């Protein structure tokens, strides 16, 4: 849509957008800023530049353990929720199910419940069933949270993808599993990758459910939470936050680069 304003006049919306972006970025940029500050206290004026907090972070076995736990849980949750989401997406988009509407709404419930209520409900159930709290209980709760996201992504990917391609594969002699493997899976792959990334991120960063449902093995957010109480530990945490940010930036860029490379490759004859 053409803008009717003369080109030299500043666009009010652009100014707003710039201010809004500043609003979003500024607090977040202070984190890495103070992670290089040699003072233990987060306050101006800045003292000397230092890397000692990064050093402290790297040499903290507790932090390593928590990081490792989060990665473990995140990967398992990502894979499982994507599988469950894929099955559900296929069932919902390819079969005429009776009661499909209420069913999908039911599966979406974790998205509309405040997390704390989900957390305590699970806590009650698990303790009544006398199951001990552990990373497994955390993982299960993350699974519940992530399945709706995975399902949403994969449903949209599968709806945009022609049903008759799968029928053609079956018509040409493939059973259900080979149809999935040779036709559905390759086409839905970008959705699967998106689901894996999203669910991993959700699980990795998730705090409330982990807080209520873990015991002695902390996940990374729990580790961060407990460290925030101690002012001396804080700069190392800021270093951690900055590092996670940089790493995820590289991971996402790498995934995007891979994706673009994959698209340019010659399509295979597959024989």
């Amino acid at each position, binding site marked *: 849509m053409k803008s009717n304003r003369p080109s030299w006049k500043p666009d009010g919306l652009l100014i707003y957008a710039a201010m809004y972006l500043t609003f979003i970025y500024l607090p977040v940029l202070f984190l890495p800023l103070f992670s290089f500050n040699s003072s233990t206290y987060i306050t101006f004026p800045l003292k000397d530049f230092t890397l000692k907090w990064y050093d402290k972070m790297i040499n903290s076995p507790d932090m390593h353990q928590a990081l490792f736990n989060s990665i473990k849980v995140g990967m398992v949750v990502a894979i499982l929720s994507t599988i469950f989401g894929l099955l559900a997406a296929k069932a919902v988009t390819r079969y005429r199910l009776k009661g499909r509407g209420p069913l999908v709404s039911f599966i979406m419930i974790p998205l509309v419940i405040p997390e704390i209520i989900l957390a305590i409900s699970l806590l*009650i159930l698990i303790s009544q069933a006398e199951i001990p709290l552990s990373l497994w209980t955390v993982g299960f709760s993350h699974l519940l949270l992530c399945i709706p996201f995975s399902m949403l992504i994969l449903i949209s990917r599968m709806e945009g993808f022609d049903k008759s391609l799968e029928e053609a594969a079956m018509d040409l002699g493939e059973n259900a599993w080979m149809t999935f493997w040779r036709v559905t899976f390759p086409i839905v792959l970008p959705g699967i990758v998106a689901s894996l990334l999203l669910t991993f991120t959700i699980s990795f960063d998730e705090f409330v459910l982990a807080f209520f449902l873990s015991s002695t093995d902390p996940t990374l957010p729990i580790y961060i939470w407990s460290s925030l109480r101690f002012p001396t530990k804080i700069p190392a945490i800021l270093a951690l936050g900055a590092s996670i940010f940089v790493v995820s930036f590289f991971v996402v860029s790498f995934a995007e680069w891979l994706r673009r490379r994959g698209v340019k490759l010659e399509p295979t004859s597959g024989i």
Partner: protein
Amino acid sequence: MTSNSHVSTLPGSFIFRLRRLYIKSESLRGYSLLSPTLLAMLVGLAMPLIVLLTLSFWIQEYLDFIRTFSLKNYLDFFQKPIYTKILFKSIRMSGMVTIVTVLLAYPMAYYIAFRVKHNKLIWLILITVPFWTSYLLRVFAWKIMLGYNGVINSGLKTLGILSEPLEFLLYNPAAVVITLAHAWAAFAILPIYVSLEKIDRSLLEASRDLGENTFMTFMRVTLPLSLPGVIAASLLVFIPTVGDYVTPSLVGGPRGIMIGNIIQSMFGKAQNWPLGAAISVMSMLTVTLMVCLFLWGTHNFRKRVA
């Protein structure tokens, strides 16, 4: 799919009939595909919520529960003024957060949808990048911004603008609102953006052609058509905010407590799980009621505008 196998094919046999039913009924096949997911969700959602409801009718005695039906928790909830007071305060604050977040997010979404010609994706990524830091750290970032010795105060002091730090910045409801408006920004921008993107541009041109200026075109065409996105954004912000306890405990102080903090303490220090369950049930009911009212209100608004 099914193999013509060693399963009994005697016409009368039960398995034969079952197999025929399975092949014939598309519904049945679809549900069996869905069953692992469904099972997980039933165990993880339906059962806990039922258990939550049940627990709210029990009573805590020292370390155990009295498993008989009792309305004591609900009576406590209504009679002790603190619970209802804080619940309503939480609803009000969440409402504030929702309004502020959506109001701030809308122009940003509008800018990307309508003013950006190339590289819309870059802008969207730019918006989401700050949210790759941990939620806890984002909340904490505001704590260090607003604190007594925090960034704003010490910065202004260093610049010589202030001699004494401002005390009112932190540990109050306003701090909670600002922090959450920042934390949820991306969640609000994206649905509104999607909704704005979908609007057929020729509708706007038609409105101009029929005599409306830019502002009225926005009010009469763009805004109503973007309403689904606004509703989605509002719900995405409001519902989780009601139960949040992390932000109030980091930046809210005693004045900024929300119902989430109370529920958390019931399962933590205060050790009264049934009462916590009852408060949770009441909170959920209230939130559902608010959401229904909201949806009903917007539905009426849409009808009147249309």
